[in-house]
């Protein structure tokens, strides 16, 4: 595909920001920010696909991210045999009973025609069904949670490489999105926003409290990495040779042997950290580019055109014979799946899963600011928004400290106001985010890189 000039400008800005930070604050910091920027960009693309292409609002970002995170745990954590022994059967029974309950309800809905009878029968069967299921379920989960609660207390996962979880995370999120979409997509857009926001809260609270599944607030730590560990790198011959080769001119200038070894050791320790982060960055970048490629393909395809038609005039599209409800569901599920992939990647990067860390402010609203600022309906815009907003989210604190110090330069270091302001530096980023969103919505409502108007 071809980029316009201002798009090249945007790409250049993004790259030069990281080079700038690399020189000022060090390459390690720069790569940490870059990794999160890429993940944010993928989340933003996910939201952008449903909102920008089809105008389907998705405020459930946090829930889909959490589902992706759950996938990372379930795929990569080694299975815990004792837990399966303790509660596997009970869980199986309750799961089978649950399926039976769902089938029974569906059967009733199909056969009983009179509305009142249907409600009564349904509520009766659901009430008693849940009572029976609860009996098995609570016993089983209780047993599982009692297995070695200090380090286990949950079912564990499959013990596969964590990189598979990126796909599984997408599937998990897509599954949840399918259910949500079936329930809620008929609603008006602002209702839909509230409902998806609420359901994402429910998803997170389930993950927080169903300890047999996700270990809940006890968190899962020590997930395996898809990239080498720093300590292994520092002992690997090829890596030492590689670092020596890269810095050969610098090392050759040092004559003293012990000094030289000292410098080399430092270089290896620094280098291993950077190498790990760089490998993450490359993996993430590959995923981002794949998604970007297909998102663009889809947007330019007849399907993308149909989506725009549905977005711009639902009634007209419907009259043309497009199944609006079905397409809305499809695009909602696709968008959620991409967010789920990002969620799995996020947990992969952190190496731990903390359900209580999922907060709507950080994981739903910030992502939406990225979409709006970048430009809804434009994938490059989404990436740009993800990069710029995450970058300013991180760099807001040092900048604020600098500004406060400049403004209060006349005050004494012990001045109460100055100290209070410096204490509340972390909160200024919310102020920045709000102001950026308001300014963009006011003066550039289509975003920094707006959607291209296509006349085809």
């Amino acid at each position, binding site marked *: 595909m071809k980029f316009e000039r201002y798009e090249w400008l945007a790409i250049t800005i993004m790259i030069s920001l990281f080079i700038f930070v690399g020189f000022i604050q060090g390459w390690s910091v720069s790569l940490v920010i870059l990794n999160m920027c890429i993940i944010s960009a993928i989340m933003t693309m996910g939201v952008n696909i449903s909102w920008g292409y089809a105008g389907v609002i998705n405020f459930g970002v946090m829930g889909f991210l959490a589902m992706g995170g759950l996938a990372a745990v379930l795929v990569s954590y080694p299975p815990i045999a004792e837990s399966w022994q303790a509660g596997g059967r009970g869980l199986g029974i309750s799961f089978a009973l649950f399926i039976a309950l769902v089938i029974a309800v569906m059967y009733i809905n199909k056969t009983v025609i009179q509305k009142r009878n249907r409600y009564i029968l349904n509520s009766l069967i659901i009430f008693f069904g849940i009572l029976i299921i609860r009996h098995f379920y609570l016993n089983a989960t209780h047993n599982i949670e009692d297995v070695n609660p200090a380090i286990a207390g949950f079912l564990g996962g499959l013990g596969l490489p964590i990189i598979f979880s990126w796909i599984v995370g997408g599937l998990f999120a897509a599954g949840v999105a399918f259910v949500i979409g079936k329930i*809620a997509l008929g609603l008006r857009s602002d209702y839909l926003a509230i409902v998806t926001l609420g359901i994402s809260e429910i998803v997170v609270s389930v993950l927080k409290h169903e300890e047999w599944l996700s270990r809940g607030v006890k968190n899962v730590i020590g997930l395996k990495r898809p990239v080498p560990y720093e300590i292994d790198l520092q002992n690997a011959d090829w890596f030492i040779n590689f670092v020596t080769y890269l810095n050969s001119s610098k090392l050759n200038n040092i004559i003293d042997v012990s000094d030289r070894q000292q410098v080399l050791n430092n270089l290896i320790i620094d280098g291993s950290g950077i190498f790990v982060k760089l490998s993450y960055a490359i993996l993430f970048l590959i995923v981002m580019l794949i998604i970007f490629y297909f998102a663009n393909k889809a947007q330019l395809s007849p399907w993308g055109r149909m989506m725009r038609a549905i977005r711009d005039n639902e009634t007209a599209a419907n009259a043309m014979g497009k199944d609006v409800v079905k397409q809305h569901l499809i695009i909602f599920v696709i968008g959620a799946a991409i967010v789920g992939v990002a969620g799995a990647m996020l947990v992969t990067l952190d190496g731990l899963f903390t359900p209580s860390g999922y907060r709507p402010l950080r994981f739903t609203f910030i992502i939406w600011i990225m979409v709006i600022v970048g430009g809804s309906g434009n994938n490059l815009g989404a990436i740009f928004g993800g990069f710029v907003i995450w970058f300013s989210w991180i760099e807001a604190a040092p900048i604020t400290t600098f500004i406060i110090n400049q403004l209060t330069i006349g005050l004494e270091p012990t001045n109460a106001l100055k100290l209070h302001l410096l204490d509340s530096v972390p909160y200024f980023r919310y102020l920045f985010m709000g102001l950026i969103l308001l300014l963009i919505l006011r003066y550039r409502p289509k975003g920094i890189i707006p959607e291209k108007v296509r006349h085809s």
Partner: protein
Amino acid sequence: MIDFLNSIIVLLNFIIIPGISYGSQLALGALGVTFVYAILRFANFAHGEIMSFGAMITILFTWFFQSQNIGLGILPTALLALPIGIIATIILCIISDKFVFQYYRYQKSVPVVLAMVSIGVMFVINAIIRIIIGTETIKFSDGQKFIMKAKQFKVMTGLNEGLALKSSQVITILITILLLTFTFWFLQKTKTGKSMRAFSDNEDLALLSGINPDRVVFTTWIIVGVLACVAGTLYGLDKSYKPIIYLNLVLPIFASAIVGGIGSPFGAVVGGYVIAFSEIMVTYAYKKFFVYLLPSSVEPTGLVQLLSTDYKFAVSFSILVIVLLIRPSGIFKGRVL
């Protein structure tokens, strides 16, 4: 007979009284959301933060009065600071309208854009609150804490179970009754209230009849400011003040407004109580209740709890989803004040 009375007291103490006071707080919040929705026609995500802002100003002035030794005796000092908080909240609402929402109203933007804008406002107010008062939990209720302590009640009646009545609960209920009566009287009887109802029913027709939209919007923000500040302060007085709680409170408030039928003020109030009671009833362990009521041979062994208290928050949303599925317009068909 005694057992029956005891079980009733258990219900009163653990479900009905907390339910009514929490429901009142939700109802006031939901009423504010409903006003914005009916007149300005968007879902105001910043409402929780507006409540929090009102509570914050009230707390600041409560501290000031406490330091000056001005108090209300047995009543909490916060009641004295409340009017100042209300005025500040109204000013905040009007400023945010002037500088932010007004532009989009004149542009006739779609509701979703306004909802996004309200998210921006939410971030800004959120930051201001945290910068001013921090994120710590603040308890600011003083004066007499209990009207009736559980022990006093036991001695008074000779029953096994105690009934505690916190003064903050009574204050909440009284203020809610007062405020709701006033709001409904205002909507039904005064000329401005009638013009607001007309405006929410049919904007074009209202404009043709010579109703000044700016005036209607101005009045709406005043009412919203009063309701939000009172709701926020009462919630903080009853539980404790913590900025993050108000962000989480937005969702039950929206749930109340939608369950009751968004746009209908009466529905919002009913929705508030429905959500509050279902949250408490679904997560309450009924063991004690059944122990009194049933003969000892069939006494329950478990806690007799439908869902663990961890899911308190999920309950309000499940109800919202169920209501939207069965009756999308809410309990009382809404959209008109």
